[in-house]
């Protein structure tokens, strides 16, 4: 049962943290509030379709179809998250008001829907595939179901906790905290995409640069939670480190430029 708890917790946690960050942003700024329902609906449909076609998709690109689709989806999520961060910071810092013209609201809503629909599609499909093997293992089916409920429940609780902590912050501290979290999450998403392309053989790489397993092992609870939220790697390659630094640097630098002529202290 513990195996199932951890598997489902990891899948749910990734999506739950993203939802909590985006929901805080959209509720505080009073963007379109109903995007989440659309995103969840689209995600569930996507997950069912992806799971059904999993075997077929895996044969694409010389047997690396799974990696390429996941990598491209993560790249898209990373770009959408960057747009969320930069657009909302622009309106908060430079214009000191929520956007009133339709284009930024449309962009923020559309990118939020895309982020969550793709995240739920990917994580949901893995959960569906995991449970698709349940019919052949009647002995374990009950513990797998209960383990899934526990793992999913834990993931949702952590997401709700993260939302609650952020939501009650004052706007100034909220934007600072949210910006930092979004930078870290986006950099992690781009690094995860890079890793998929490395696994598919599309990017040549070198030996890992360092190994922090002695400090935080990836197999530990902390390591698994950090992996789920920030794509923590104990032994990253040069390419992964470069992508992480580039993403974090570009986003951080852009936020700095936006704040330089800020109308909000």
């Amino acid at each position: 049962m513990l195996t199932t708890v951890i598997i489902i917790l990891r899948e749910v946690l990734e999506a739950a943290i993203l939802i909590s960050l985006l929901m805080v942003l959209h509720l505080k700024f009073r963007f379109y509030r109903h995007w989440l329902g659309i995103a969840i609906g689209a995600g569930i449909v996507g997950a069912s379709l992806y799971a059904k076609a999993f075997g077929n998709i895996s044969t694409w690109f010389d047997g690396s179809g799974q990696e390429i689709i996941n990598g491209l989806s993560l790249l898209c999520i990373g770009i959408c998250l960057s747009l969320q961060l930069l657009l909302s910071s622009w309106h908060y810092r430079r214009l000191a008001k929520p956007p009133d013209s339709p284009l930024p609201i449309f962009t923020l809503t559309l990118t939020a829907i895309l982020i969550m629909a793709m995240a739920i599609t990917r994580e949901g499909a893995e959960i569906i595939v995991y449970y698709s093997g349940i019919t052949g293992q009647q002995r374990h089916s009950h513990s797998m179901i209960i383990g899934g409920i526990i793992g999913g429940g834990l993931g949702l609780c952590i997401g709700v906790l993260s939302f609650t902590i952020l939501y009650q912050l004052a706007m100034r501290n909220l934007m600072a905290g949210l910006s930092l979290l979004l930078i870290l999450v986006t950099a992690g998403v781009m690094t995860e995409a890079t890793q998929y392309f490395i696994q598919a053989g599309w990017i040549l790489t070198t030996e890992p640069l360092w190994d922090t397993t002695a400090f935080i092992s990836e197999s530990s609870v902390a390591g698994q939670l950090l992996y789920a939220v920030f794509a923590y790697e104990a032994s990253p390659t040069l390419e992964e480190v470069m992508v992480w630094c580039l993403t974090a640097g570009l986003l951080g630098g852009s936020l700095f430029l936006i704040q330089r002529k800020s109308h909000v202290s």
Partner: protein
Amino acid sequence: MNRKTVLLLLPFLLTGTIQADDNLFHLKINRHLFYPDTLVVPAGTRIKVIIENQDPTPEEFESFELNREKIIMGNTSATVFIGPLKPGTYPFFGEFNPETAQGKIIAVPADKP
């Protein structure tokens, strides 16, 4: 980005796929066990592992040390590129059946027999 730039960048994109002398290894999954459970591979070079899942249920090949995870559907095969690895031992497991599906990759320096 004009056409010239795209043509210049194209070789960098393709270098990942054109690798005539990739070291090729095979793993099988049967009754939630890996066969062989130990693979000895050369260190310092990228290897290609073809994993054949002979069980009817899916399995997820995963390794924290190798930074690899891939779902392999029942009665299908999958390809995973690993490395280059420093010399050492790298455990892997089947995430869906971790109690039984366990194995390791041992990377040895190329000059060792």
